[in-house]
């Protein structure tokens, strides 16, 4: 509903808004957030969070750029992805084996890997040559690669959550962890995989940023965890687990994308855009709560 109101409002305000190219702009702008929000949605249905997403994105991009200074693009790319996924392994290990709360764990890795990215890049942005394809190529219908990746990742996680035993188990874990154990679900293993998938998506995001701007930067994805969680929650996922859907997250993503894009097109001060995004999150969730309470 928000989505329709928003779309109508901005299309009246700005003649460019409904143009095909503008839609591509909107999607490109939220592509990385969406790629990361897909595994994020699944983690949230299992009652878990990953706050470290922005830092993993930056860390991957910096590792990529640094390696590319002295090695081939392909080699750097593989190692960068491994580096990103390693953070997911750390998160997963701490949450499922050591038993640290996911919020605390990923808050820790959020800080630590932002710092490690800064250290690796010595606080600078590092240029990368010859790695434009992933971020800027438009192989067909003028659609940029990040948007294609976004659609692919959303589709993959839609299938995963809806049609696999793994996806079903994640819902069960989030809905009642004790009961999940008592029906023989290996919760630890499943949640571990969830964190690894989340980190893999972040690594993909880091590579896309690097390719789009031809640099690796330790400031990529700062504050991105907020946008990711906003999209997931706008999509109807429950913070306490057991509820959530990829279709919902896709809608949440569009709401954020359209809001940002529309505010820019209508010439609103970018600082106010942050205020709008925060208000949107609180507004949408409050609306949801009130509706649920009236429904009872």
């Amino acid at each position: 509903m928000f989505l329709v109101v928003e779309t109508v409002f901005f299309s009246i305000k700005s003649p460019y808004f409904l143009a095909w190219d503008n839609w591509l702009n909107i999607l490109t702008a939220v592509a990385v957030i969406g790629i990361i929000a897909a595994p994020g949605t699944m983690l949230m249905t299992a009652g878990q969070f990953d706050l470290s997403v922005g830092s993993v994105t930056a860390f991957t991009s910096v590792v990529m750029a640094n390696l590319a200074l002295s090695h081939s693009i392909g080699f750097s790319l593989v190692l960068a992805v491994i580096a990103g996924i390693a953070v997911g392994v750390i998160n997963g290990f701490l949450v499922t084996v050591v038993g640290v709360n996911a919020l605390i764990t990923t808050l820790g890795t959020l800080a630590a890997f932002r710092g490690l990215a800064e250290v690796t890049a010595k606080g600078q942005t590092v240029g990368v040559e010859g790695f434009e394809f992933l971020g800027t190529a438009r192989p067909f219908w003028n659609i940029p690669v990040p948007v294609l990746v976004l659609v692919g990742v959303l589709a993959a996680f839609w299938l995963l959550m809806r049609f696999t035993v793994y996806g079903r188990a994640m819902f069960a874990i989030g809905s009642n962890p004790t009961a999940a154990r008592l029906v023989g679900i290996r919760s630890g293993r499943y949640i571990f995989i969830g964190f690894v998938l989340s980190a893999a998506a972040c690594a993909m995001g880091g590579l896309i940023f690097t390719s789009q701007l031809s640099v690796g930067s330790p400031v990529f994805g700062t504050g991105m965890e907020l946008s990711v969680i906003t999209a997931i929650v706008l999509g109807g996922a429950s913070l306490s687990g057991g509820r959530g859907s990829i279709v919902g997250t896709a809608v949440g993503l569009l709401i954020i994308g359209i809001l940002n894009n529309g505010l820019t097109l209508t010439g609103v001060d970018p600082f106010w855009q942050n205020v709008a995004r925060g208000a949107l999150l609180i507004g949408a969730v409050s609306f949801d709560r009130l509706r649920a309470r009236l429904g009872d």
Partner: protein
Amino acid sequence: MNLDATGGTVLALLGENGAGKSTLVKILAGDYEADAGSIAVAGASYRSMDPAAARGQGIRMIFQELAAAPELSVAENVMLGQLPAWHGLVNWRSVRASAGRMLEDLGVELDLAAPVSSLRVAERQMIEIARALLGKARCLILDEPTAALSHQEVERLFSFIQRLRERGVAIIYITHRLDEVARVADRVQVLRDGASVLEGPVPEFRRKELVTAMVGKSVGETGRPVPLDRTPTRALLSFEAATSDGAFVDLDLTVGDGEVVGLYGKIGSGTAEVAEVAFGLRKLTGGQLAVAAGKRAARNPAHAIRSKVGFLPADRQREGAFMIRSVAENLCAPSWSRLARARLLISAKLEATAYGRWHDVLSIRSRNEPTQPIGTLSGGNQQKVLLGRWLESGSRVLVLVEPTRGVDVGARAEIYRSIRQLATEGVGVLVVTSDYEEVVQVADRAVVMSRGAITAQLAREDVSIERLSSAAGE
């Protein structure tokens, strides 16, 4: 319904689960509102109560699940809600002095500075009662206070209640244990299916009359299971000299194919732990457990399920159901990989088909929509769905812990029928329960535990409430 509590006397409110005991006293304590009728306290009449008004009138309830602040000290918990303060600043010296005096009055010795979380349930109960009395309680409601207490603790509680009575407090004592009525109460009122069926001074009634009033039919005839026409041919679950530290010692117990064994014992007797071991939730520290033909005991629930063991936990909401998920998902959860194509791909449609297989067999009363969240069903129907889990997964051994707790009478009969039906199909069932009625109604034979050891083995024709109770140390 009428209820009458007088200062200086103990009224026992007796009834089975779901008889309406809790609802009645919750109206008194202001948690629920009565549809009709009124409440009179010391002469003043009220149409309804709210919790604050009930407290103001000195009506206090001590819940089964104790609601103290576990991280705070004993003294703070006693004084909770009435801390002596001067303009918002707590006077700690006075807190300790008042709390100490109160506990001393009651004959309870506790370290005032100890956190409540370090205390045992019985001691927490004393604190709750002390707090209620400090708030000038005139009427104290105790909801099944002995459920989690050991024998000595029960004795202490009873002498404690005696002292409260001498102080002129009116006590409403809720229970479903007959022996407690004779021990502690002056008057008794029996509830069944939401109506008061018997009322009067305790000495006027014999035990048998109370039981008949509570259950609704003559006890001798109570829904005995039809005996099986065959004897078990092999053991599906057998404990041999099994020991689990702190729970039970040197236990021998066998469940054969096609029989329902009732494992009866009070809370803390070790029965719950036996069930946990059978499902891989707890390890044996000595002896052994064999599952099915010669297989080793389960290491964890997943392993137990693969060995065809099913488990129904005691607490349906916290341990059993995925409340916000659909009934079909709830029923299929342990069978997902088996139902899935290539052990991987599952759809709501496959789940719905599986659910359809058991919906009528278990007489689940719902809109028959596989997508309906299980939380919208009644307790009894939820329990049927959870039982269906293990039918779908093809379990050969079922461990059912308190299978009809919080289930209404009609659904209970249907669950018992399903359990009997399973037995005729060759499934071995271990019903772990603290409800003797359950043993009488569903089991082929009974094993009774007390303090971690088996105290009686009763064949079907020997199972009676008296024998169960005495073997369980009641």
